């Protein structure tokens, strides 16, 4: 029914507003995501740069498209039609029955007009072309069957144009049935400068439209937005041209493969105007198989890209600036950006199969939050513009057509003007469509590759890159629908779609459930990274606002208790078990880590377990590869400290610092400990380094952490008490003390070795720690007895522990005792039952159970 308002088919104002807000958020969020991602790239290889480039390309496409589709233009109902109308039905090898139906529908158009059949079968040398002439004769419709002339639809139209005289020319493809009100809807729009009126395409397809032929986004948003800037272009069917306009530009364009886009382009460049009506005036057939669709889109893409490469709209002076941008977007940017998506398809599989890293979500939560800031509004914009199904199909088509557009770009570059465009059929098959062709073989192979890579990865069972698995499944999911369209038979296509899509989606859902499960199991949030496995941790729900980073601070009253117990220090799949310490509240859980070897990364899973247990993880961080079999290797890596200070290990350190920063909860790092001894390669004297080098190295690492905002880290500068002997003099320590800005705690290591150890001594707690304590307390920092223990073979381990806990009260600067409850190669320091009982009992007292005190540092 005709009315006074705008045509049906336009988006409501409300939806447009929502889409605009979402688009703005996506542009801003995308920029923030890309900036954040850019910071990771130095740690990753060149492969990651390729992936990042694809991300940037996608973003730029969005950013450039948003202003162009900002204002879709609603058209009002047209005034009554006027002028004489010729209806051209272009035929090139279609079934006579189909053509007959099309002609019959055209004859039924409710307006005085002449209908012509333009039979190009003879020119294209298609067998049986005479049958179309017979149809024309039977229906009494004039038929132009040219023997010569330019190839293609443009030549066919131009030939008919010379032999007819209607003021307006409606072009209808042989497989499209015109609606009776075609002229009523369109002819009234022809104001004097309007060259053509284009319409929405409508197809006889299932409502589920698995291939995305309906293109809601293009016809509902892009074309109306182009119309607002007088840049809507003809789609070749269901379009009415003004004869004088076509004649003004010398006829339909024969320059390109298909006439519609380039003819529209030339009309606009000549100052003519266009109108787009989002209401279909014909209903026709569309590709029913993915192969046929890929062939069709390859033609269109090649056509558009050829225009972009060889007759670039940006350089066309006849167009307005916005028209140039629209044509550049339509003919080049869209296709090239989509072609870039091939990276998204290939990278997850290569990442899984070859171990190449494209992402580095040290903290997956950070990654998810940053990505969501971009992807969620982008999705909202698409849904607002195109509806759920339209948005999903759009995303699926982007993946499916990426290889097609790559091929199109290559072909378009090879098809220079004047070299001809042979080898291209300009007609979509209507009745018998190919099921698989060489073009879609790529998509099938990619789909198989993605699934195979997931299968291989899962077969590992340990150290799985869950992030890459997730992305591989997402990309396989986007390919699965179009890939399943391998038959014109609906039932087979539907079944194949279900069979391909269901396992992918269910597997994806299960992976996500496992990732977000509150029970720490075989996977963890921390291990959802494409970096090295990071242990096991419980996952937390995403929080829109990140908590403040907090740093451990010394208690005002009392002493923190901590422990190094190998069974606790490395956590487990089942969480930490602190039952050994009974009611004693451990605030620091200690472990040792080396810079080289399997255990070189911050184990976020373990750290989270520790934090969840109400404690802070303390890592004694050793820049060496721990030698096997021997206790130490003091001459490993001469000049180590100089190398650290020079930045040789910055890549590793930065990554570590980011992990630590992302953790946000308190971490204690005891870095390059016992440097006053002679047994480690980072000792302050010797091994090619000087005390100044030690200081520089310490500060350099500290600064790197600062640059990464890892200010939740507390730094322990820890010396050895030298087995209770004369302590290192203050003057010597001062040479390599990094400075109060760089140190939060001063640590002391001291043991009662017992008579049977490699250092056969029996010393009291006071004798062990007092001399060194007296030296270090002058630095004005809280003191941590970072390694303290008594040999199980000492005279009275329980008594020694008890006296330590009593005597430590005299050392007022001592704010933490971290018990060394382990068997070392030199002596067994594990706490046996009586000593353990004393520790548990002390842990119940207020003195040794101060509140876990932290300070918020930053957001």
């Amino acid at each position, binding site marked *: 029914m005709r009315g006074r308002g705008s045509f049906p088919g336009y988006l409501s104002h409300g939806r447009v507003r929502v889409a605009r807000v979402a688009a703005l958020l996506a542009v801003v969020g995308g920029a923030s995501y890309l900036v954040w991602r850019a910071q990771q790239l130095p740690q990753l290889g060149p492969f990651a740069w390729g992936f990042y480039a694809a991300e940037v390309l996608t973003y730029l496409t969005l950013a450039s498209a948003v202003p162009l589709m900002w204002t879709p233009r609603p058209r009002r109902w047209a005034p009554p039609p006027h002028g004489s109308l010729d209806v051209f039905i272009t035929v090139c090898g279609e079934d006579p029955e189909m053509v007959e139906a099309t002609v019959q529908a055209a004859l039924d158009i409710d307006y005085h007009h002449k209908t012509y059949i333009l039979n190009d079968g003879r020119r294209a040398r298609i067998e049986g072309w005479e049958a179309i002439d017979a149809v024309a004769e039977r229906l009494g419709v004039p038929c132009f069957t040219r023997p010569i002339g330019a190839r293609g639809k443009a030549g066919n139209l131009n030939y008919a144009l010379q032999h007819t005289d209607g003021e307006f020319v409606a072009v209808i493809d042989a497989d499209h049935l015109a609606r009776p009100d075609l002229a009523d809807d369109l002819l009234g729009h022809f104001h004097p400068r309007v060259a053509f009126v284009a319409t929405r395409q409508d197809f006889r397809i299932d409502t589920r439209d698995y291939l995305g032929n309906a293109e809601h986004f293009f016809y509902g948003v892009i074309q109306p937005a182009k119309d607002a800037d007088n840049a809507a272009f003809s789609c070749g069917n269901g379009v009415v041209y003004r004869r004088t306009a076509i004649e003004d530009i010398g006829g339909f364009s024969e320059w390109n493969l298909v006439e519609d886009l380039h003819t529209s382009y030339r009309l606009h460049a000549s100052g003519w105007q266009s109108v787009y009506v989002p209401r279909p005036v014909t209903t026709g057939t569309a590709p029913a198989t993915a192969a046929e669709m890929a062939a069709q889109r390859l033609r269109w893409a090649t056509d558009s890209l050829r225009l972009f490469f060889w007759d670039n709209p940006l350089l066309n002076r006849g167009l307005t600036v916005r028209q140039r941008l629209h044509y550049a977007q339509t003919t080049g940017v869209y296709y090239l950006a989509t072609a870039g998506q091939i990276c998204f398809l290939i990278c997850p599989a290569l990442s899984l199969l070859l171990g190449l890293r494209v992402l580095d979500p040290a903290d997956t939560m950070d990654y998810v939050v940053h990505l969501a800031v971009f992807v969620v509004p982008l999705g909202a914009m698409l849904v607002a513009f195109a509806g759920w199904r339209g948005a999903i199909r759009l995303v699926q088509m982007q993946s499916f057509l990426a290889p097609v557009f790559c091929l199109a770009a290559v072909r378009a570059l090879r098809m220079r003007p004047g070299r001809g465009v042979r080898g291209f059929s300009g007609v979509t098959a209507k009745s018998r469509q190919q099921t698989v062709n060489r073009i879609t073989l790529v998509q099938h192979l990619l789909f198989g590759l993605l699934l195979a890579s997931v299968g291989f990865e*899962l077969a590992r069972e340990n150290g799985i890159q869950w992030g890459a698995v997730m992305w591989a499944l997402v990309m396989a999911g986007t390919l699965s629908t179009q890939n399943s369209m391998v038959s014109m038979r609906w*039932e*087979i296509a539907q079944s194949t779609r279900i*069979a391909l899509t269901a396992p992918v989606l269910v597997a994806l859902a299960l992976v996500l*459930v*496992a990732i977000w499960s509150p029970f720490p199991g075989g996977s963890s949030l921390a291990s959802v990274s494409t970096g090295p496995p990071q242990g096991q941790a419980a996952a937390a729900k995403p929080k829109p606002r990140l908590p403040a980073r907090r740093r451990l601070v010394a208690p005002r009253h009392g002493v923190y208790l901590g422990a190094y117990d190998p069974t606790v220090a490395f956590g487990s799949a*089942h969480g930490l078990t602190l039952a050994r310490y009974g009611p004693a509240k451990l605030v620091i859980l200690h472990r040792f880590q080396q810079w080289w070897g399997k255990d070189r990364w911050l184990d976020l899973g373990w750290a989270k377990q520790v934090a969840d247990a109400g404690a802070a993880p303390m890592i004694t961080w050793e820049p060496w590869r721990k030698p096997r079999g021997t206790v130490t290797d003091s001459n490993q890596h001469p000049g180590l400290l100089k190398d650290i200070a020079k930045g040789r290990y910055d890549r590793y350190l930065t990554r570590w610092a980011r992990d630590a920063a992302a953790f946000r909860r308190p971490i204690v790092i005891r870095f390059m400990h016992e440097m006053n001894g002679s047994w480690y390669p980072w000792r302050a004297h010797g091994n090619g380094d000087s005390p100044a080098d030690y200081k520089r190295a310490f500060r350099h690492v500290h600064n790197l952490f600062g640059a990464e905002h890892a200010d939740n880290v507390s730094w322990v500068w820890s010396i050895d008490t030298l087995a209770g002997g004369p302590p290192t003099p203050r003057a010597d320590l001062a040479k390599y003390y990094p400075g109060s800005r760089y140190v939060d705690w001063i640590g002391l290591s001291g043991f009662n070795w017992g008579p049977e150890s490699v250092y056969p001594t029996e010393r009291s707690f006071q004798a062990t720690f007092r001399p060194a304590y007296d030296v270090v307390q002058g630095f004005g920092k809280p003191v941590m007895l970072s390694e303290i223990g008594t040999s199980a073979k000492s005279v009275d381990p329980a008594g020694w522990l008890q006296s330590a806990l009593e005597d430590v009260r005299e050392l007022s600067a001592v704010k933490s005792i971290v018990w060394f409850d382990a068997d070392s190669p030199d002596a*067994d320091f594990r706490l046996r039952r009586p000593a353990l009982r004393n520790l548990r009992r002390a842990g119940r007292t207020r003195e040794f159970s101060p509140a876990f005190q932290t300070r918020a540092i930053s957001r």
Partner: protein
Amino acid sequence: MVMGFAAVVILTGLGRSSLFIDEIFSWNASSHGLHGVAQAVHKSEVTPPLYYVILHLWITLTGAESEAALRLPSALAGIAFVGAVMWLGILVADRRAAVVAGILAALSPLTLLYAQEVRAYIFVMLAVTVAAAAVVKLSQQPDRRRWLALAVTASAVAVLLHYTAVLVLFPLSLWILRESQVGLKARLAIGAAGLIPFVALIPLMLVQMGAGHHSVAADAYAKITPVGLLRLAGTPFDGRALDGMTASYELGFVALVDAVALLAFADRFRSLRTRWLLVGACVLPVVAIIAVSALAHPLALTRYTAVAVPFMLVAIGVVVVSMPRAIGGGLLALAVIGGALGVGAAQTPSGQWPDTRSAVRAAAAHYRPGDVVVGLNNMAYEDAMSYYDLREMPPSAPRATGYFSTYDAMRAATTRRALAHGGRVWVLSSPPVLPQDLQNALREHRAQVRSERQFGGSYPVQLDLVAPRR
């Protein structure tokens, strides 16, 4: 023929493997009279009592003692299960679908696992299959009371065998409630048949949740992992073997998800009356177990979704014979290859349960008075070795069980006394203890590990001989 094939698969190597720790629990629970059964279900089991009563009767009536004899009821139930799956397949679709489902049941690694295990799972699988088949038959012949009686009995038995039966009885009840050709009373009776025993068993279930080996096992194995969830979703293709199963459950997962998704969404099955029964019974147990595991308590083990297996296999059978050949054939190939790989892996030496039998025999062969036997890890459970212990070791041999750390076990009074008096310690552990742990634990004693031997299985049993230093 299919059942004959199933019998060959199931009976092959029935007694080859040592009894697994869970099987020894079942044997222990059923060997001490009905009072023992009652005690066991309260203290150490997580299932209702019916299976142990059945096993008790079997042991009492036949005097079954060997592994094969103890497993024979499960094996017979497994063969019957294959038949029941075929019956369900015939009722739901046709004979061809039934044959496919039957072959897949015979080739299911999970069927093999439970048909060769002294546990209740294959019985509950059989009972829910029979209940579902009887309900479907009743919907076809509403006036035949015998199907109602069978449906009610099988439903009640299923719940008395295992709580998880309700996960399929629930969709079954919903489905029959919509079948208006069946009388209302009959429909309500079917629902009540599962509900009433379940409600009656809730107090027992609560007691069991707070005790027994359940929490330990769950903490160790039943947490949600992505791979674990894939296995859960492809339950019939999970099996006894630990290695070589990836391809089995990956292929099975794809075949199964495809089959259920096609049943649910393909236009072709819109006219299939039992469509939502099959889909519900396939999906609900898996979703429920995942939800409970994700939100409340780790339970992500295929033993708890085993009740869905008959419906999953019938779903594959129905889809295979109904879809165009390319899709149906592809699905069948995936399922058969997946199943065959899993069954094959289960029959290899590394697919067997830990070889406790050989380990205890080896210890017994060299046992001297004054020696002591220590169990660690899984062997630390008091019942873990008891079956072989009683048969192979001298009755007077002292034992130290119940210690879950090597250090504590070596400090146990029995162990210390034995070592102090020149006796030796036979340490049985599965999974094996770390040599360093054992060395460390022996530091306090003047003892050393004299010999070390491993016995095969899905994870090995280690036998260490600890003797005083000379």
